[in-house]
């Protein structure tokens, strides 16, 4: 998500000064995305340049009041109602690390997975404690917190899945896909070995 679309969405509710807009954005996202005021003004300048906001009639001589334009309202509505598409290959460090780790001889993958699982569970415990001890009734904050909890749960389940797959391969219940994808030198076809030797 960009700050641009978030601010535009807040402005669709009514005109705001820069500081007001920042406070309102943070209030509506449970304070989980703190904004730098400089970032807010830079974003507002760009939104104004693109015709999505304009300067309104301010009663304050120092501050500028910003209001959304019709085009800005359309853009905010489009963003709010469109699904979020997560594009491209994963850049998740854990996924990449484990993918690499299973190809490196001598690493204790089971121990590596358990160490990660323990850390993931520890983080999950922290967030769960935070959730169950907070009684402020801030729905926005709780939803963001729960999103983080579910992501950690998914990570834990994925670790279980990886461990299960590796166990089945180790026990010979599943073939090792690595054997086909990355044949060891001795298992390479003769022509390929000859090619590689040149």
């Amino acid at each position, binding site marked *: 998500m960009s700050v641009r679309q978030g601010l535009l969405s807040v402005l669709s509710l009514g005109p705001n000064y820069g500081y007001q807009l920042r406070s309102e954005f*943070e209030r509506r*996202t*449970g*304070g*989980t*995305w*703190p904004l730098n005021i400089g970032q807010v003004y830079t974003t507002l300048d760009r939104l104004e340049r693109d015709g999505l906001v304009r300067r309104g009639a301010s009663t304050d001589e120092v501050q500028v009041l910003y209001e959304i334009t019709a085009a800005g309202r359309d853009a905010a509505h489009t963003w709010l109602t469109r699904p979020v598409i997560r594009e491209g290959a994963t850049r998740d460090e854990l996924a990449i690390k484990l993918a690499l780790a299973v190809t490196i001889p001598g690493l204790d993958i089971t121990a590596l997975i*358990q160490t990660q*699982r*323990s850390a*993931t*569970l*520890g*983080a*999950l*415990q*922290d*967030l*769960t*404690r*935070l959730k*169950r001890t*907070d009684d*402020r009734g*801030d729905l926005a*904050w709780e939803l*963001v*917190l729960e999103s*983080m*909890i*579910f992501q*950690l*749960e998914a990570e*834990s*389940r994925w670790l*279980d899945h990886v*461990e*299960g797959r590796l166990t089945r391969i180790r026990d010979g219940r599943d073939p090792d896909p690595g054997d086909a994808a990355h044949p060891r030198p001795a298992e390479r076809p003769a022509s390929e070995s000859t090619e590689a030797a040149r």
Partner: protein
Amino acid sequence: MTAAPVLRLDGVSLQYGQGSTSVTALSGIDLEIRRGELVAVMGASGSGKSSLLTVAGGLVRPTSGEVIVDGQWLSSLKPGQLAALRRRHLGFVFQDFNLVPALTAIENVSLPLELDGWKTSKAHRAARDALSTVELAEQADRFPDDLSGGQQQRVAIARAVVGGRSLILADEPTGALDSTTGEVVLRMLRGRVDHGAAAILVTHDARHAAWADRIVFIRDGRIVDESAYRGVETMVGRHA
């Protein structure tokens, strides 16, 4: 001074069968749980999670090692004494609730007390108190079929703690419930622990295990790791 553990497992091993067909379910388990503590047990299917619970609850005797509940060595108890200890000290919560369909909620909760010789009126008073703690006092006279799954599990939790029993043994208590209802049940379980009970929660769900103070991981019948609440709350927004 640290309180004595409600449950202690000392080098507990459990084998099913004999000779070449024997299967090791638990191997050298050491575990202590104190009042006010919720311990989650996680592990893959067949890792020994449920075996640990049945041994801790005195339902199965370990092949070797000791189980000590509230200072009593289970190996020293005769069957009748063991049954009495289970009624007075232990409460079980199962995935499928295990309520008696022909009894109302309050009758289900008071049943273990009445089996232990309590007068019905006194047992019902205690049962009503226990139902209040899981916010079900108003459903006391309903039959299980008239309650939702989440409500039935809360009745099971009330039954597990009624009469001041000290140790709750919960085997996948949220397994048959949707996410939101499961969380209500966990909140109730956590509440009972925070009020002085101790509990073991067997679960495969990390999000539910995270309600525990400690998470114990079992593989091939052995405890292979433990994750404890670190006491440092993650910063999430400005509320933290």
